[in-house]
């Protein structure tokens, strides 16, 4: 069955038209409708403006804003994107995405070069990165294979357990992971005369991979695999009855998300210049979930929006309020966003665009919301 047909069957077109969607009964699966053209308006002015801003950003931002805010947001956003993909479109909330990212980081340090004697193998950087991403993807598939037979809270529990187990492994293993100290001085290479950890080159490196990850996810969601995955999210039993291998699709989704998280993990390790048990501890496992939820899981761009807000808060909350109380600001902002918007920042954005349009009554936003939340 073609992707377009499936989208009709599952009623998950990118943009439902108001009145029709309103008339349709709210339910998991609605009556099939004729398929629409695949790309209604793939490129809008907004996209170009955002792209121009992202490319021009380092030219007017300070190195601090380029590196610590910009590049860090992009790297973290990429890791959170893997969770948005898994959770928003696969219906599986995995807390182990930072673990996968950490595995990639550790492998780059172990196969490549790090400060620790006797641990690093010193292979060329590109080989270490490829091995790191491959191993992390394999580990993600394994995590998926372990956890796909569970649902909801049990998926969260089992992935959390795997994440914590990995944390203790790297904390207590000295032969390979160098224990508490972790792997220090894991830097990107100097290539074509450019040291890729300098603010501007690193920003563009992160931007390239963030855009690549974003476009890959957007593309994948419209492919037969992505459509089937969303079908499985909405009604696995029905998809199974239709002849889809639900487990295989889910494990594949874990592997794909793992590959994205692994790229983000390598970038994040290079950004920090080190990877330690602290990088894969419980707080980071949960931070990735916070980033994804904060931005909104309705669209892949939410992961990056969430990451920007998260990084800004981490850096500047302490200036708003003094001393040890600054975590209160971070918590309060998270609460406000989650309480007043059902779908993070993206929810606010949609509500705002509805406000600005003159349309009354049934709107794009409300129909989109019904479509997404009445599962």
């Amino acid at each position, binding site marked *: 069955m073609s992707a377009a047909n499936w989208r009709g069957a599952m009623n998950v077109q990118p943009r439902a038209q108001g009145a029709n969607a309103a008339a349709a009964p709210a339910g998991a699966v609605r009556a099939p409708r004729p398929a629409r053209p695949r790309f209604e308006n793939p490129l809008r002015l907004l996209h170009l403006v955002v792209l121009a801003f992202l490319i021009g950003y380092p030219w007017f931002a300070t190195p*601090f804003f380029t590196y*610590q805010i910009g590049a860090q947001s992009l790297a973290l956003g990429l890791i959170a994107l893997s969770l948005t993909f898994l959770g928003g479109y696969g219906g599986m909330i995995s807390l182990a995405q930072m673990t996968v990212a950490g595995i990639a980081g550790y492998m780059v340090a172990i196969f490549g070069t790090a400060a620790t004697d006797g641990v690093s193998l010193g292979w060329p950087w590109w080989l270490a990165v490829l091995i790191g991403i491959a191993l992390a993807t394999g580990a993600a598939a394994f995590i998926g294979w372990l956890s796909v037979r569970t649902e909801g809270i049990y998926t969260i529990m089992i992935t959390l357990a795997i994440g914590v187990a990995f944390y203790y492994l790297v904390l207590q293993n000295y032969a390979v992971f160098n*224990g*508490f*100290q972790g792997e220090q001085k894991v830097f990107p290479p100097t290539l074509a005369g450019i040291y890729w950890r300098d603010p501007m080159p690193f920003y563009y490196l992160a931007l390239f991979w963030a855009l690549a990850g974003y476009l890959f996810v957007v593309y994948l969601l419209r492919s037969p695999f992505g459509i089937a995955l969303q079908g499985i999210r909405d009604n696995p039993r029905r998809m199974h009855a239709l002849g889809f291998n639900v487990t295989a699709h889910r494990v594949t989704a874990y592997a794909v998300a793992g590959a994205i998280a692994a790229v983000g993990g390598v970038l994040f390790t290079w950004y920090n210049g080190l990877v*330690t048990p*602290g990088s894969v501890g419980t707080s980071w496992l949960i931070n990735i979930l916070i980033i994804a939820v904060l931005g909104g899981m309705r669209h892949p761009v939410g992961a990056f929006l969430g990451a920007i807000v998260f990084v800004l808060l981490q*850096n500047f909350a302490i200036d708003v309020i003094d*001393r*040890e109380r600054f975590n209160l600001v971070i918590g309060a902002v998270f609460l406000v966003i989650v309480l007043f918007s059902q779908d993070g920042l993206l929810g606010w954005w949609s509500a705002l665009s509805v406000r600005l349009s003159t349309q009354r009554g049934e709107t794009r936003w409300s129909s989109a919301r019904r479509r997404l939340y009445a599962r």
Partner: protein
Amino acid sequence: MELSKKTVVRTLAAVLVVAAISAGAFAVGAFAQAPPVKIGLLATLEGPFAAGGQDGIRGAELAVRQRNGVVAGRKIELVKASSDAKPDVAVNATRKLVEQDKVDIMVGPLSGSEGIAVKEYSKTQPNTTFINGSSGAQATTLVSPSPNFFRFNTDGGQWMVGVGKAALDKGYKKVMVIAEDYAFPYSQVQGFMTEYCKLGGKVPVKAWVPLGGKDYASVIARVPKDVDALAVVLGGADAVNFLNQYEQAGGDKPIIGGSITVSQDILNYKGKRRDSLVGTIAGSPIADAYDAPEFKAFVADYKKNFPDGYPSPSLFALVYYINMKATLDGLDSVKGDLSGGQKKYRDALSKMTLKTPVGDVKLDANRQAIGTTFITEVVKDAQGNLYNKVLRKIDNVNQTLGLPPAEFKVGSRDEPNCP
């Protein structure tokens, strides 16, 4: 729902406007005065050392208050940041202070691994002077030192000098080491063992436990029958947990403590084994019962300024105080002149003899402090309270613990070794 959302949006907008106006007012206020000197202050206000970080900030603030917030005619502006004892978090917080808030001088961080990471970062910022907070890993200043990173406190190894001899004097010929598994305890164990092994002591077993471990049963089971004492280099809750479990297991070996093992908070814990701590020897840069007038004045000043602080300043308060005092004394000696890439200021720091509550401090070629270490022993006073008596005061302890630099190896899990 619509109404309430609107209200929320309006309220938020109002808050933002008020915040913007007040920020503007602050900026105007700052312009009105002579240019202030901006000092970044980083400590752990989160994570396992949150209490220590808070006391460290008190120490640093005390040094500022003693000058009434002014140095060489310039107002001192402290910009604080927090980390959670993780090196990546510490570097991010430092980068924000240096590159975003544009501080002139940076003071911090608190913990060992953080110190190594911040030192590495300092190499990329040659126009800012970095002064340590209380981190005590040897590698910070010993391995590839940074030309603009200064440490006016002695390190974890220096803090334990003299404990080996004190242990042998007590008749402990064989000792088992129990320590946390990271850079700072490595330094502490090395400081103890270097002297102890040289004088003929034996350490047949070393048990490295994870930071924040709860269960010490397996470690206690490994204590050999024939050792005379246990050298316990654990901090905070880890130390209390270990001592309780060792007591419950019926252990009766005397204890040799690390610098943060027998501090006030642990001496005051409620347990039957508390009394058996009497006689515990330890090494530290601070001794509560040190009776020099400078130290007594420091304690009195601390108590007066921070009624909500500890009954007596902790190690972190003293060490942050020392480093902040060095920062300000240095500024004073160059009349606040930070021009020319702060070259004059750094020369002044390198050459100065710093007066601290626990004696004079000088820097070596790696910009690492040479200073005083106390050997203390836990004793019981008339009211039944435990406190640390000063057994011995050792001045001018250097970073290589008296060994020639070529012979000295940075402490690790396997170094030194004398089974």
